[in-house]
């Protein structure tokens, strides 16, 4: 059973436009969510996170929105740049005293930003 689902395996966007990456989760015990970005032959790099007590977190061009009632979160990138082309992973975990070893990742969405 997939607790974190990224239903779009790929997304193509024009440079300068908005990229919206979506993520759904089934485990209502998750109280913290993270987005990681991964380039080929490199490890994932932490991008942005959000606690379940918030519905929005912003960091420069990156904004994550959380809709707890829908068990849905999304990552918005505005404006998109060619260097943003990578695989983006959504992950959730339970921050009750556990560790991020309990991170549950989705399968990822490959974003391509075309010049």
């Amino acid at each position: 059973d997939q607790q974190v689902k990224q239903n779009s395996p790929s997304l193509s966007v024009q440079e300068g436009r908005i990229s919206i990456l979506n993520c759904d989760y089934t485990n209502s015990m998750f109280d913290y969510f993270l987005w990681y970005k991964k380039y080929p032959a490199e490890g994932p790099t932490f991008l942005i996170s959000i606690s379940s007590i918030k519905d929005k977190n912003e960091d420069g061009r990156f904004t994550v929105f959380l809709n707890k009632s829908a068990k849905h979160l999304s990552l918005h990138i505005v404006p998109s740049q060619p260097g943003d082309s990578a695989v983006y992973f959504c992950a959730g975990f339970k921050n009750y005293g556990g560790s991020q070893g309990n991170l549950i990742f989705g399968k990822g969405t490959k974003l391509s930003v075309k010049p």
Partner: protein
Amino acid sequence: GAGVSQTPSNKVTEKGKYVELRCDPISGHTALYWYRQSLGQGPEFLIYFQGTGAADDSGLPNDRFFAVRPEGSVSTLKIQRTERGDSAVYLCASSLNKVSPLHFGNGTRLTVT
């Protein structure tokens, strides 16, 4: 400073052989994690160390997999009697503590023939 270093970057081995994968975490990071990423999947948790001890090994798939971190820094993931299904990218990550963001290495791509 230096990031998480994993060696080798690639390892090809025959079915049934033993392999060791090494991880050098970021200096001062007390938490160390091993993940495994199969093709088309997200990273999957294997084991977490806090200092020298394995605080959570619930992700290890079976007793062929074992990991150590004897001095609380470098860690080695050991796989006995490798099987073709073990082929994957093995990712190591470290963090300042158990709730800080993980910093991943570039991984070791293991291929079992």
